[in-house]
């Protein structure tokens, strides 16, 4: 159901860490409602790429547009992009000094200037959606990894983003907790959220993704629908990588 409207566009994006060339001429368009899965070997630049989208990393050449706003040195533009784009991290990164509820209301209160009561209402709604509203008064340290990651997803959703970025959201979880997080993500996808998701969960990619991007050595090697890419990879590099994950 993706529309034709392009919400994220990367054009010839390059990034260096010191002298290390981490992203090489990346070109990628994401449409509204589209679900993109990014896969590739470790160190291939997947995280770097999606972190450039909300300027957690700075690219050195090329153009990144998010909802028509160019991601640049302009602080105002970056803040606008970050309000529109939610992000979920591998390590959850919940704020340990705040309760679950306070984690969720922090940004709505301070960034959107929402009354506290209203922010709490919205927060409770999202906590219910990720099925942990009984834990609202607890601190992150008292939750399991899966619960923490669901709180982190709810925290992003509270800002009502139009795009969600996921950076290996299940990699730090025990197998039995992966499912509860994936369920939440599938649900989100079914509601039509635009998602860019770095993950090694090929099942998730097959069922949910509209497009799979395969990266290696800082380049986009191949980009296709999941069935094409998994069933009929064009590049040797992709084939190699797929055979490796399947073997495991």
């Amino acid at each position, binding site marked *: 159901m993706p529309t034709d409207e392009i919400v994220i566009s990367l054009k010839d994006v390059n990034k260096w860490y010191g002298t290390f060339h981490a992203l090489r001429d990346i070109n990628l368009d994401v449409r509204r409602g589209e679900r993109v899965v990014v896969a590739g070997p470790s160190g291939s630049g997947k995280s770097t790429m999606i972190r450039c989208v*909300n300027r*957690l990393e700075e690219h050195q050449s090329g153009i990144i547009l998010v909802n028509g706003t160019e991601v640049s040195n302009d*602080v105002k533009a970056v*803040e606008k992009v*970050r*309000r529109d*784009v*939610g*992000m979920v*991290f591998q*390590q959850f*990164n*919940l*704020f*340990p*000094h*705040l*309760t679950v509820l306070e984690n969720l209301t*922090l*940004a709505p*209160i*301070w*960034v*959107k*200037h*929402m*009354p*506290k*009561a*209203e*922010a709490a209402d919205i927060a409770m709604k999202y906590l219910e959606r990720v099925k942990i509203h009984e834990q609202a008064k*607890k*601190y*992150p*340290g*008292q939750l399991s990894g899966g619960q923490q990651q669901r709180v*982190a997803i709810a*925290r*992003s959703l509270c*800002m009502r983003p139009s795009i969600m970025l996921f950076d290996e959201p299940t990699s730090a979880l025990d197998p039995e907790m992966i499912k509860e997080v994936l369920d939440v993500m599938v649900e989100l996808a079914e509601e039509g959220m635009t998602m860019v998701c770095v993950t090694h969960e090929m099942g998730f990619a097959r069922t949910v993704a509209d497009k799979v991007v395969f990266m290696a050595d800082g380049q986009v090697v191949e980009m296709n629908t999941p069935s094409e890419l998994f069933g009929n990879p064009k590049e040797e590099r992709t084939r190699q990588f797929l055979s490796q994950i399947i073997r495991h």
Partner: protein
Amino acid sequence: MAMVAGIGWFLVANTLTNLNARHIATGFGFLDREAGFGISEHLVPYLPSDSYFRAFEVGLLNTLEVAVIGIVLTTLLGLVMGIARLSHNWLVARLASAYVEAMRNVPVLLLLLFCYSLITVSLPLSRNAFNLFDCIFLSNRGLRVPAMIWDDSAVMVVSTLALAVAASFLVGVWARRRQEKTGRYFPVLWSSLGLIAGLPLIAFLATGAHLSFDVPHMAGFNFAGGSTVSPEFAALLLGLVVYTGAFIAEIVRSGILAVSYGQTEAALALGLSRMQVLRLVVLPQSLRVIIPPLTSQYLNLVKNSPLAVAIGFPDLVSVANTAINQTGQAVEGVSIIMGVYLAISLILSFLMNWYNKRVALRGGR
């Protein structure tokens, strides 16, 4: 157990015999007697004819004065230097590290002696004092500044200042309430600054725009009028602040580094501004790491303040020292010193622990 008691008894018995042999009185009776020595700096009235007790009081107040002003200034310096060490500005970071390394590797006493020489040897004589607007004079006799004369208009200005401070506190409370209700943000910092600067200014203008000062001026070879920051006080304060600041800078730096960078990233990704990230996410977490070692640095500053003896600032220890030399009652004198410092240590630790609990309470684990 028995051994400890035995040693204790042995020491006490020896001490009593020795005191007897030297005809030295025991007990704290001497506190009521006339001290008979002058003290150059006193926050409360003091004359040589006052009692030893009074002299101790004066010394204690001087110690506390140095401690309070020193702690405030050294915290500011340490905070600035700690943050500067983490700055992305290469030059600023290097300069801050150089400061920290230099201070941490020399004795504080050397620093004090150096500051004292700097003031008393290198600053000009009174008659050639550095002169700022003909009212502030810096010379080897210290810093001479105008003193306010307490007429009606001065009282008015100062009381509106107090009023403004109270008002900005109320504004802070009100702003938080309103933000919780409506979500609208009120610029508390700026409005408080406006209040604190503006109200006294209005009072100043309303009372006829005149405040009278006792301006220092040359009389003979020295200044008359105004009030003085003595070279001893200035050197002590400068040395302690600069020395302790280096240690606090390290504490602040490692406190901020202790908060993982993921916290900052997550907060930025939610759209918070950098200042908000620092205030709402990073500082609350680093404070918990910072406060315990900060407490011991505050204690160190207080415990280093008796080095005043070396440059002749009359703090508690230097007063006690004089009293011991005059009366010979070393045991009592030293117990007073130790008792007072123990009390200060305990009170300060208690306050900081209380504050730490308040910070740490919010945080579950």
